[in-house]
């Protein structure tokens, strides 16, 4: 089966249905040339993200005046009812910056495809990220997966938590609470750049937040699989 650029691109963009995705993956497994092609297309996306990062430069005065919101970089989240790990000011700043682009205002409905949803003033994984967090095992994930799982562990409050890198751009920490993945922390992913390849890695702030709440050690492959088997409860 011939996989054209449009289909390969759609695969990378997470736009294929399960059958088509399986067909592309079968073709990739059989064809080193196609794998190389996929890598180059991933390189295109990574280079674009390098070229066009989020713009955190000071906002022009007249634009600020228009919005009458001098503290544009601060995103205040309401306090949670349940106890959560305290985040340092730095971590909150990273969180606010990372979410600055991802938030929807209160009354908007989040789309099916958005990574996060806002519910009762709290951020949770949206359907796509929810699926990844619930089903994807770090020990068996496709290296080309749009969203990659990093650490899986149990927090001191008993919740299962996982770190992830979303679309090679956003590093985050989510914990399972009452049947949903609550976002505890996000930050722009660290970019490890080699001569020819680039990989998005977890942000130091996310790893810090994880180490602040972890009970014991991160799970190994067997522990991770067991946590998934019991439904993260």
């Amino acid at each position: 089966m011939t996989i054209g650029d449009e289909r390969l691109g759609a695969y990378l963009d997470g736009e294929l249905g399960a059958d088509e995705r399986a067909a592309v993956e079968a073709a990739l497994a059989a064809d080193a040339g196609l794998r190389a092609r996929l890598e180059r297309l991933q390189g295109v996306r990574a280079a674009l993200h390098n070229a066009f990062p989020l713009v955190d430069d000071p906002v022009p005065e007249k634009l600020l005046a228009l919005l009458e919101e001098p503290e544009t970089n601060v995103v205040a989240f309401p306090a949670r009812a349940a106890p959560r790990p305290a985040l340092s000011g730095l971590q909150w700043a990273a969180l606010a910056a990372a979410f600055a682009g991802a938030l929807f205002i209160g009354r908007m409905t989040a789309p099916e495809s958005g990574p996060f949803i806002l519910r009762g003033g709290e951020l949770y994984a949206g359907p796509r990220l929810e699926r990844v967090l619930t089903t994807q095992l770090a020990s068996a994930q496709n290296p080309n997966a749009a969203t990659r799982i990093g650490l899986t562990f149990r927090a001191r409050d008993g919740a299962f938590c996982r770190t992830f890198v979303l679309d090679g751009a956003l590093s985050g920490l989510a914990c399972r609470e009452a049947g949903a993945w609550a976002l505890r922390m996000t930050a722009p992913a660290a970019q490890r750049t080699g001569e020819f390849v680039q990989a998005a890695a977890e942000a130091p702030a996310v790893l810090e937040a994880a180490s602040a709440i972890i009970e014991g050690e991160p799970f190994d492959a067997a522990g991770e699989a067991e946590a998934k088997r019991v439904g993260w409860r």
Partner: protein
Amino acid sequence: MQGSDAAVRRGIAELLPRLRRFARALTRNADEADDLVQTAVERALRRPDSLSEGARLDWWMFRIMKNAWIDELRARNVRGRHFAPEEAGAAVAADGAAAMAVRLDARAAAAAMMELPDEQRLAVSLVLIEGFSYKEAADLLDIPMGTLTSRLARARAAIEARLGGAP
């Protein structure tokens, strides 16, 4: 009902890093980009009622900015130059670069973006940089999905050729 005016302002303020990134991907320098953001935000605040119930604020804002940008291009009377025919750039995507690894050079990627026809740059910005789904991007641009996917493929190939080309 829509969110209150204050909520819209707050929402737009939160979107600024992305809106400014989008503007920089479309225009040629940071000042031009911020002018475009300014225009788009002014328009949005004049017509907060155009944000329909259930619509995403970011989708709405990006659409307003896209329209503002196209108006700007028209006003400058450079439309003929910028809106190259769909076929332009397709030939760049030959297999010549096939064996070469892509150089992850941000400057080369930015330069490659600026060489793309405007409609391809819009597609790349919305999907590859901003992460909109194909459906959302096609709706935002008022084009069919098939047109969007072919623009994306052409643009990716052109950028790839530029990144993978001889140093």
